[in-house]
């Protein structure tokens, strides 16, 4: 029911590199777990989905500028930085 291609496809979506061994293990896990999730097929179609338990919406604050993190703080945990920038891998391949 779940193919190995499905597993590799999902790992690409999730940006998660997996080995062949892991792929096969996950494939077996998913088949079992997704089969259990099949019970949800019994939920009637006409029920409204619940997105938020509290039914709050459009929770805004005043559009006034406030103090944020200092630049030094924001960069503190960065493994690679240059002046005021985070250094990352090439985005355009």
């Amino acid at each position, binding site marked *: 029911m779940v193919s190995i291609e499905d597993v590799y496809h999902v790992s690409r979506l999730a940006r*998660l590199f997996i080995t062949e061994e892991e792929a096969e293990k996950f494939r077996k896990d998913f088949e*079992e*777990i997704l089969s259990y999730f099949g019970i949800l097929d019994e*939920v009637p179609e006409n029920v409204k989905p619940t997105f938020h338990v509290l039914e709050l919406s459009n929770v805004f604050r005043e559009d006034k500028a406030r103090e944020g993190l200092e630049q030094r703080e924001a960069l503190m945990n960065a493994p690679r930085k240059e002046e005021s920038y985070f250094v990352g891998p090439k985005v355009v391949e």
Partner: protein
Amino acid sequence: MKIAEWKALVSEQGCYEAISRMLEKIAKSMLNGYITVCRTEALKLAEEFDKGHLKGKIAGVPVAVKDNITTKGIRTTCASKMLENYVPVFDAHVVERLKAEGAIIIGKTNMDEFGMGTTTETSYFGVVRNPYDLKRVAGGSSGGSAAVLADNEAVLALGSDTGGSIRCPASFCGVYGLKPTYGLVSRYGLIPYANSLEQIGPMANSIEDLATLLEVIAGKDERDSTNSGKGFEFREEKIVKIGLIKNMTAEEKVMSKVYEVLNKFDYQELELPSLRYALASYYVIATSEASSNLARYDGVRYGHHLQQLSSWSDYCSKVRADGFGEEVKRRIMLGSYALSAGYYGKYYLRALKARTLIIEEFKKVFSRFDVLVSPTMPNLPFKIGEIKDPLTMYKMDVNTVPVNLAGLPAMSMPVGFVKGLPVGLQIIGNYFEENKILSFAKMVKEIS
């Protein structure tokens, strides 16, 4: 140890001495309950207390904080290699509140990686052992918080609960733990796993202490857009209508303990048919939200990184593969699958519909009952390594997840031992009715 006992100890020996002794106990502990012990900071604050400079509701009281709650300047790892050396630059809202009341944060507790688990076996820093049997699990994901409370390595603790992660370890370690109504306690600073399900909650060694800690951490916070704005103050309330949820079960010996307690009260049995969808609904929603919440870990702005920079996608994929444990990967992938084109309608949307059914059913039932009860866990604490299959592990959450889906408050209280292992009773209340839950817990404690 309870707050009152701690305060008595401090008036005898002084805070510095009391904290030093606790730190010694922690250093010798076999439980692996702490990932980081804040030795220097705690002793400094203890000195401040002895000089009369620390004031507040819980001044001088040692509090353990689960390691997915940010503490400024103190490493916060979520028990993951991904955040092994992450030092937050801000305090969580609840931490600000603890500090405002004079608490001494004594350490960051061990947990399942990113909160994903029921035993702490998925922790990058090793499993937390059960204080009543070192070969057994302490429960999870707030296993460290529960274990240190049971072993006098803290007097109060904070945990977080997404699908039972406060209640399960409270049950397995014989302590008190409460998951507040969704929106009562700010999630600002709680490193997210499943943000529509989780709440930070108090854990303690008595009902009074649980209530005190909840009073400290609950309340308005503008930085959490899912915060209700409501506060909490403990008030004893009359409890008359008690309902036992028949289709939340446990193994025979655990059920007999539950009946032993309940038979001292007038109660009714009821069944909630929609609960049959709860586990599937929970795991679809939780893993879907997790796949989104954990997308931020890309090895660039913080957290685990690799030496070689390649292309973005390649680098990101390798950092994540190297930084995350197996269970985390499994849940991220399951969630991505459930949300992906072609499957969104089959899994995620249906899970949200099942959620509606569960909420509606609880609403109807609470018009007839003050509180609902059940065994917290279907089993006694199992041996470390005993459960290897993911689905079998997920099924351990069957009594706890419906509460998170509905956003209701619930606690676990210790009601005795079976074969020397603790048993917990789950008490569920209606939205923002934590006082009813705590009041019923007091009634149970009084008759035992």
